[in-house]
């Protein structure tokens, strides 16, 4: 293995806002859910935030679709707790406006007329401004005693292609609105997202395209002075072949005679077509192993800590989520 697995660094452990991104189809929502569980270990309270409006958290934890409020979705041994928030952009806008203007019940009517949809269309960045603003509010919220309400906040964020734009939208919009409420809020959001309190984790599979996007995203994050956290290798499948056999097998050179002899030694006398099938499967396996090896080498270039999660053959249900969280904790996630 060429990726140095250094797990969770001190620096990442200090972060309170964990942003989880990744190419579509890499399982970033699942990873975000597992990360929230892992961080809640030891009696901590964690908020898991969903911003893309697809109710993925509800499916993940097998609950009813979430309303726009912070709902408890899981507990962990030692008194830990995960709450989830599904941010509804329209509700967030009303909430935001209510902070500065008294719209009264007419707000609901405006909503029905599509005025808010229109406003967010007019300024596409507005949606992201509201989302990051809400996230910041959750991260910095304190109780009566001045303690943070949440020990950590995990965000199931937009995919790698949009992540920098999403996180830096407030900066872009702040230039548009030089006065008014947005200005006052934006400074705080920019400061939080660019500080050591925030880590941006990137989920990838060991495949060519997701890895390339991950490497590109790291470059973009660095360029925008945002902090990449860990690479999370998701759905890692086992390698079965002895290392010395991989190259030959990937080239289609599998010694069928030797395989057959071995099978006979194990008491399996198989028909020719079955042995041929096994050989074909072996070649495909070897090609995949090689591709994964190349992917690891490419990832090693970005030099970030990495966490590995094994592929769960039976799919992801709430129980499997705990399993993934446990694997994270074992690799140092805290």
């Amino acid at each position, binding site marked *: 293995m060429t990726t140095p697995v250094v797990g969770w660094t001190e620096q990442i452990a200090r972060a309170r806002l964990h942003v989880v991104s990744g190419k579509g189809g890499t399982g970033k929502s699942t990873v975000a859910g597992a990360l929230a569980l892992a961080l809640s270990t030891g009696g901590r309270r964690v908020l898991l935030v969903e911003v893309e409006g697809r109710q993925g958290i509800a499916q993940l934890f097998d609950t009813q679709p979430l309303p726009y409020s912070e709902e408890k979705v899981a507990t962990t041994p030692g008194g830990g707790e995960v709450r989830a928030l599904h941010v509804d952009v329209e509700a967030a806008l009303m909430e935001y406006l209510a902070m500065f203007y008294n719209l009264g019940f*007419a707000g609901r009517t405006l909503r029905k007329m599509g005025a808010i949809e*229109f406003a967010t269309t007019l300024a596409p960045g507005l949606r992201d401004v509201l989302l990051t603003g809400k996230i910041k509010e959750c991260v910095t919220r304190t109780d009566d005693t001045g303690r943070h309400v949440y020990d950590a906040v995990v965000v199931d964020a937009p995919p790698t292609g949009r992540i920098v734009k999403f996180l830096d939208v407030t900066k872009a919009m702040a230039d548009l609105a030089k006065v008014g409420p*947005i200005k006052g809020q934006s400074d705080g959001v920019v400061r939080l997202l660019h500080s050591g309190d925030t880590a941006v984790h990137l989920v990838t599979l060991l495949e060519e395209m997701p890895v390339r996007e991950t490497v590109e995203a790291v470059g973009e994050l660095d360029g925008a002075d945002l902090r990449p956290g860990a690479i999370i290798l998701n759905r890692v499948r086992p390698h079965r072949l*002895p290392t010395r056999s991989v190259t030959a097998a990937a080239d289609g050179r599998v010694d069928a005679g030797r395989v057959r002899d071995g*099978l006979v*030694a194990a008491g399996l006398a198989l028909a020719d077509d079955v042995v041929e099938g096994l050989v*074909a499967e072996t070649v495909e396996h070897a090609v995949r192993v090689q591709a994964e090896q190349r992917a690891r080498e490419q990832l090693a270039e970005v030099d970030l800590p990495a966490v590995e999660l094994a592929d769960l053959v039976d799919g992801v249900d709430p129980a499997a989520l705990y399993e993934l969280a446990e694997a994270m904790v074992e690799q140092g996630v805290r």
Partner: protein
Amino acid sequence: MSVLDVDALIDDPRTHVLVCCGSGGVGKTTTAASIAVRAAERGRKTVVLTIDPARRLAQALGLEELGNTPKQVAVDGFTPTGGLSAMMLDMRRTFDDMVIAHAGEVRADEVLSNPFYKTISSSFSGTQEYMAMEKLGQLAAEGTWDLIIVDTPPSRSALDFLDAPQRLSTALDGRMIKLLTGPVKAGGWGLRKVVSGAFGLFAKAVSTIVGGQLLADASAFVQAFDGMFGGFRERARKTYELLRSSGTAFIVVAAPEPDALREASYFVERLEAESMPLAGLVVNRTHPVLAHLPSAKALAAAENLEAAGKAPLASAVLRLHADRVALAQRERRLVNRFTKAHPSVALAHVPAMATDVHDIHGLRAIGERLAGSAT
């Protein structure tokens, strides 16, 4: 469970438009390109409209850059009897062309130079979808092609491209912008008064947030755009009708994964609701078992060999076979869940290629796998 017969579909002279849709990352673009290659080699004069192909796939089709018109695919070892052209959608140029066509030169200049137009035409989330449909309409109107194959944008949700024209229409509709920028009319009956009063506040709030300049630009844009509006609507309606016509077929592409199949389900339901012609579901990148040997038997034998310290190659082969059986079972379970909910939808399975595809041979191989389901 019925089988999706891709060859019958592309050979049928009545099939004029094939739309490949599905959520992001399922191999939609590659599937569209593979079907195009196959159709061309089976004698149809084919064009494929891709949206955002991976660089190497684009190269496989001889597309080095965005070109807003189809270009004949000229690659060594590829001499289809029907002919194949390909293009990549240039969203901005398609929009520009549309404005110019509808507005006349003077007003077009005014619209094209408006800052708000630049925002709408490059970063509004539905623009790409809308322009893909616009381009499809144009290609269909040309009448040059036997078969047009369209890839759909890599949206968050597979449904976006059906909704985009409507959303963009709402955004460009003058009604809202007038409410935000025009003077608030007093009077009228109770609720309206309250609402317009709130609109005044709301307009103030919005202009504080998005900036007064942006609102002013938007207002100027909408005024300049006003006259063109009917034309835009009319075209969107025509494309919608084209999608519903009998010459069109939708192919939904999904990976054998829960999320992708869930999206595929939504999509199938939506197509039914809109009476749009669904040809079937392509389950892409499956891992069928290639050797008939029960997993339990393979694992027991592997354990024997490992305990005896013998034949490491054979035990590795047995274990990777057991992994594959488990993977194939999961995929089958997920697909079964889909077919239970949608028993009438025809299916084709495409076994995964060992490596990424980036040339015509690879596309041809996928086409063979795709058609292989029917034999």
